[in-house]
């Protein structure tokens, strides 16, 4: 969660990997005999140059710089490919594992992303794809030094974990974000086989409860290498004794995030065992019904006081507000606090937040109301990231936060870089104020939950507010819009949003012109996700020049037809055009062949550039045009 390292890892703040490069079409072999770096005794002066180059390129770590280096000439391309150790693949279908292995030879760490983000909201059918299997099977043999894997929105099976553990027993770091397809058995396999594992982090994953006691599979004796163990998303009971034993034998453990099944008493014991923790997820933060007996023996406040290095606190999944004051001793040191599962009001928040002077990342529920946000603004002048989630996530909910809270935040937290804010009443004036008070904004995501809601004081569309954001926040890279929006809002985005890379649009706009403004006005646009907007073929056509520069385009419940999408596919062969159909209550074998019905509405369009053309694992409700 609010862990800056993770945020950086997944922020696409760099130009896309140009895997095409200059050498993809060439089978030319290198003039030197082998890839040995530092071999200065070769006869060929070209080879000396290449070896020197490789030695220098090792120091190049940014993938943007490496992409540029690889384009200089063929020998630079080759040298770069041999020395790139950190691989980032933003779309697992943009390139095949075979092509990757052919080009890069010494990969030590991999970041791989799969499904489009709208899969998080049930817009992508479960078996759409993004399988990890082909990757694990080819990479584990090709990259013996692969020690670190981060996967986002991938489908991973227990067998994949077994393959990974078997092929790479010295594996060190596994970070899974929004992944599914596996159960506790998979984790048990990792614990069994990867005895040098340092980092095991599961974030927002769906893990099948197959009732395996995975924690017992860690070695039972001897110290472990564990530095980070995060499993707060696992909705299964935990073997506390196994965990406690593990924590005792993990002197390097800095990050521990418990799941909501762990009681406050179990948390207390673990806190006493691990005073060196920097990141703590507190689990349920309430007692187990059966354990009331132990209540007197627990001095929670003192336990928190002993965590002298703690900077990041989360959890509170079933919190009883009576326990909240016990965290007060750590507040002054906290840089990150996640209360987004704690249903607390302003009065409960204030005594805590008033101590959090150093807070940079804060996630909270709207139950704290505008008053709570005002309290945050009064203390947290160093705040960089704020997320306000709705306690009741319905479009007709009476969310108690409004423009008042937003203005307060903008006035108190001027260094704000990233905001995600759910609400059900907002004004243009407040958004304009934020655009002026927080010029460092890089991410602005406002979700007015009621569809097509205008400025609730003036009745006007929210065009001016979002217009001000793109105009005044010159560093803006990511934008999500909502509320009643006309084509004018999109005019502003196209006109001023010159650095915008990611744009999310829902229930907005009047005509295709809006889409045209964006596709023609935003040269840095990488990821465009649209749902339920009146955009059609004309709008889509206006982006033909740009699609190969984008990672993906998603359009669902818009005005596209099969014929229109097919035409785009015909004109842009380096882009894969997927039409995805919902298969609720339908026999998939009965779905009519989609290409025969050109006039049929496209429910979901997912379009992405790919070096390797159409994928071979598409299920039958996906048609690749």
């Amino acid at each position: 969660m609010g862990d800056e390292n993770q945020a950086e890892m997944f922020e696409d703040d760099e130009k896309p990997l140009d895997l095409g490069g200059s050498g993809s079409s060439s089978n030319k072999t290198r003039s030197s005999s082998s890839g040995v770096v530092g071999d200065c005794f070769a006869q060929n002066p070209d080879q000396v140059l290449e070896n020197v180059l490789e030695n220098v390129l090792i120091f190049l770590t940014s993938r943007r710089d490496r992409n540029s280096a690889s384009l200089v000439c063929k020998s630079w391309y080759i040298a770069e490919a041999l020395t790139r150790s950190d691989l980032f693949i933003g779309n697992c279908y943009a390139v095949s594992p075979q092509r990757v292995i052919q080009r890069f030879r010494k990969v030590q760490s991999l970041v791989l992303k799969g499904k489009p983000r709208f899969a998080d909201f049930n817009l992508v059918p479960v078996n759409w794809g993004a399988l990890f299997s082909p990757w694990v099977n080819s990479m584990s043999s090709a990259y013996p030094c692969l020690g670190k894997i981060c996967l986002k929105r991938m489908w991973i099976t227990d067998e994949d974990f077994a393959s990974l553990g078997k092929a790479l027993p010295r594996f060190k770091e596994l970070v899974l974000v929004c992944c599914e397809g596996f159960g506790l058995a998979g984790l048990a396999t990792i614990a069994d086989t990867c005895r040098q594992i340092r980092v095991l982090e599961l974030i927002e994953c769906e893990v099948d409860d197959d009732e395996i006691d995975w924690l017992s599979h860690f070695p039972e004796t001897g110290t472990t290498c564990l530095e980070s163990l995060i499993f707060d998303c696992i909705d299964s009971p935990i073997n506390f004794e196994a965990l406690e034993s593990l924590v005792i034998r993990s002197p390097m453990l800095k990050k521990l995030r418990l799941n909501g099944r762990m009681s406050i008493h179990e948390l207390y014991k673990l806190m006493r065992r691990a005073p060196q923790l920097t990141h703590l997820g507190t689990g349920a933060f309430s007692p187990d019904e059966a354990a009331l007996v132990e209540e007197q023996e627990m001095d929670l406040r003192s336990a928190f006081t002993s965590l002298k290095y703690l900077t990041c606190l989360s959890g509170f999944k079933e919190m009883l507000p009576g326990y909240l004051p016990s965290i007060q001793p750590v507040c002054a040191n906290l840089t990150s606090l996640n209360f987004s599962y704690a249903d607390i009001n302003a009065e409960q928040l204030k005594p805590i937040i008033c101590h959090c002077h150093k807070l940079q990342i804060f996630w909270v529920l709207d139950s704290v109301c505008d008053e709570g946000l005002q309290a945050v603004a009064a203390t947290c002048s160093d705040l960089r990231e704020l997320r306000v989630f709705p306690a009741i996530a319905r479009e007709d909910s009476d969310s108690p936060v409004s423009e008042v809270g937003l203005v307060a935040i903008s006035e108190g937290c001027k260094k704000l870089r990233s905001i995600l804010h759910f609400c059900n009443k907002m004004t243009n004036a407040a958004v304009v104020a934020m655009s002026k008070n927080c010029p460092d904004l890089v991410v602005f995501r406002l979700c007015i939950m009621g569809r097509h809601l205008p400025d609730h004081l003036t009745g006007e569309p929210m065009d001016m507010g979002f217009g001000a954001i793109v105009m005044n926040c010159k560093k803006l890279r990511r934008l999500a819009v909502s509320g009643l929006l006309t084509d004018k809002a999109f005019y502003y985005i196209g006109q001023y949003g010159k650095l915008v890379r990611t744009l999310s649009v829902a229930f907005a706009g009047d005509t295709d012109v809006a889409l045209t403004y964006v596709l023609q006005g935003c040269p840095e646009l990488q990821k465009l996700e649209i749902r339920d907007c009146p955009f059609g073929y004309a709008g889509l056509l206006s982006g033909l020049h740009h699609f190969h520069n984008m990672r993906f385009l998603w359009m669902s419940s818009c005005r596209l037809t099969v014929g229109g999408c097919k035409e785009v596919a015909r004109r842009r062969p380096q882009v894969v055009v997927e039409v995805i159909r919902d298969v609720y209550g339908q026999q998939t074998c009965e779905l009519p062949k989609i290409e025969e019905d050109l006039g049929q509405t496209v429910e979901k369009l997912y379009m992405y550039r790919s070096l390797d053309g159409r994928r071979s694992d598409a299920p039958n409700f996906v048609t690749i045009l």
Partner: protein
Amino acid sequence: METVAKYEGDLNLKATELRLGLPGVEDFEKQKTPIVRNNKRALVETGDDCGSNNNSDISDARDRDLETAPAAKKQVVGWPPVRSYRKNSFQSKKTEVETSGMYVKVSMDGAPYLRKIDLKIYKGYPELLKALMAMFKFTIGQYSESEGYNGSEYVPTYEDKDGDWMLVGDVPWEMFISSCKRLRIMKGSEAKGLALGL
């Protein structure tokens, strides 16, 4: 280009038409008739057909939608964009509030993949079973209180809040959807114990 100039100096926003309920129409129709998909649009896409022609088609379509807009707003899939695990934590506490979706996993013995369905969209057992049969391509016999799904190759079961595995159909529908955690389509031979209430 005219529209560009108009926006640039426009401080007084012109009144925009109200469009409440529009997208809800599509979804409303979708939820009423999940099997039959007949939402073909009249728009004909050709290579030269850009600009004004398309726009008028779009506004015509929307005018039609305006006429048929329903009074009540049904909740839309995936909106607001909050992940389901965040939704579940609070709405289970506020039981008066109707939840916006109730997704449960469905597995079938022998099938390699899981599916997910929203129990809220079904009105009762017959609809649910029909959907399951279509999804996984199996058939079941008639349900009877005494004998369960006797004679079926597959039997639909579910895990309830207490962790017990029950036969689908044993409890009233309302109780079922509020207690069902996940579904499993079991082989008939394995489910015999359940049918007899053991």
